[in-house]
């Protein structure tokens, strides 16, 4: 089962290495990982998408909490949460096909961000299933290059 775990950590060298070593050592999967700044420059926020049964997810969150550099761990699977992923896709655009690709981008509300002689680069943000559907629709045209951030997530709800 897919889980999104949000970890707030001290922004110190080695913390990323420590967390990724932890996952590797214990055989937990990392489907995607995004690490970036937060509102506090002394901390970073890692969003890790992993999968496993409940027991494994429980172990993962406990092990993460145990690290000294970890400040907060949220298993977002248990709450309502906002999730976004960002992808940029460089897709083949032979002259006849360019129009079709632009249409797909419009439907998904993505943006064309680069135009080449034989290809197009489209940017799209959204939830994982939207991104996945977008990629699947573009695949028949031939995907030259693809970069994804991996999901970031935030708990919903009035506070």
């Amino acid at each position, binding site marked *: 089962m897919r889980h999104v775990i949000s970890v707030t950590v001290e922004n110190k060298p080695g913390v990323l290495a420590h967390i990724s*070593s932890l996952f590797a050592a214990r055989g*937990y999967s990392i489907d995607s990982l995004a690490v970036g700044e937060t509102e506090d420059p002394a901390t970073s926020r890692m969003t890790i998408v992993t999968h496993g049964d409940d027991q494994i997810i429980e172990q993962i969150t406990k092990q993460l909490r145990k690290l000294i550099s970890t400040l907060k761990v949220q298993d977002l699977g248990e709450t309502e949460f906002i999730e976004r992923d960002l992808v940029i896709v460089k897709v083949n655009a032979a002259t006849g096909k360019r129009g079709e690709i632009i249409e797909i981008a419009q439907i998904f509300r993505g943006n064309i961000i680069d135009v080449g002689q034989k290809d197009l680069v489209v940017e799209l943000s959204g939830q994982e299933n939207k991104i996945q559907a977008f990629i699947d629709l573009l695949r028949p045209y031939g995907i030259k290059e693809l970069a994804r951030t991996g999901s970031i997530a935030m708990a919903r709800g009035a506070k």
Partner: protein
Amino acid sequence: MRKIGADIFVDALVKEGVEYIFGIPGAVIIPLFDKLLDSPVKLVLTRHEQGAGHAADGYARASGKVGVCIATSGPGATNLVTAIATANFDSVPIVAITGQVRTPLIGNDAFQEADMTGITRTITKHNFLVKDVCDLPRVLKEAFHIARTGRPGPVLVDLPMDVSLGQCDLDYPDTVNLPGYKPNYKGNDRQIKLAAEAINASKRPVLYVGGGVIISESATEVFELATKASIPVTTTLLGLGAFPETHPLALKMLGMHGTAYANYAVTESDLVIAVGARFDDRVTGRLDAFAPEAKVIHIDIDPTSISKNIRVDIPVVGDAKGSLQALLPLVRQATHPEWLEKIDNWKKQHPLVYKPCGLKPQYVVEQIYEATKGEAVITTEVGQNQMWAAQWFKYSRPRQFISSGGLGTMGFGLPAAIGAQFARPDAVVFDIAGDGSIQMNIQELATAVKYKLPVNIAILNNGFLGMVRQWQELFYRKRYSGTILGDANPDFVKVAEAYGADGIRVTTRDEVRPAIERAIASPRPVILDFAVESEENVFPMVPAGEAINKMMGGMA
């Protein structure tokens, strides 16, 4: 009968031409040890896994082949860590096989479990955890390939017990497919041409030669280049033996405890030709004062070594042998009479010296040189013993000097001597040691005795942790904190005899040579306990952070 992982393992060793495997068994690795009994690969049982790792390392350095060591999971594997780091630092090809708990238990804090791939991630060239027995043939093939190619290094293969008992019929592959690993062997032609031009135009060139020349077996090419263009040659610690030190162009070692004339030559050169060396801080001293007037050519197989510490003018990324072979025809014959005369004067004015009264450690090394006619294979421990061994023996062949350079591991010398003796059964092998270092892996005497290896251990016994004591004398007003060993050292002769080896005590200068000759003649391992001058210092010395031409002490 179907093959199991342990069969695949032994098959791989045989296919890779492995003669010896150094190690100690344990619960999870018994399946491999069982198959070894019926194989042509000879097990060398050591008394500590660190000894096994260093022995595999010494074997690799002495032979040029991949050294193999094996340990069980948990503490057995973690005992290999220092040895793996030692090999990593000096680019030595070894494959370390560690047992691991059964795959379902990994990550669960099982008995004797250790995350070896995590622990050794930054000290191995690469490592593998094998989870599927059908991956094992490919993994082992890749491990040996990675260990011995490009810039060699240690590779660890972590092998869970159920994988070694699992069944798979795959054969050992003939080829490797590593899309992320393509070392560049051929130096760029344009760069080589530029290098030749620089050499032809130089007036005060110096060859700075490191361990890479020995690894790439290019001592012949270095000799040709040096003699063709009259270029004096200095070597790093790991490069000792790459150029014959008895040759008039030889400057011996440079750097912190190098010769004054090597350090002056580099400082006043107009062209430094670096081959297979990495401008380590022990060599360069203060970076902004290193070879200030020289252009730098750097021939190295590892791009990360180039322009890491100092800016290189003409980088040549490639194998040293091939690059030098391409370079040689483009280099003109030359003589540099003024430059060589200047260097000769430095040699006469500032030779290596010591006061020859009493029993001096330098004298012991000189006598080992004389008694073996300069042909011995020398391993060292670390500290003053290592520096005197580097200074007072004249090395003439590659793979003759075996020492832990980059990591500087005390306890390396005795197990490395064991490995070297296996690699060179007919050679006379001497471990030059200190009383501190020798006790760190003294248990390996048992290994030498068990396999009847006539290694000779020359302990320069001064009762101190010598190099640290020297620093405390020079910079801390002789405040000897934690460096006094003599009040509790064992009687090394008795220790030798307790293990079934020979022990010879030497207390006067006159006894030195006869004792060495007796040791060489003995078919058993021998400890020679030389009671040397206790507060002798290694000179010259470049103080830390100083330019290498600002040496202290040891000037005649």
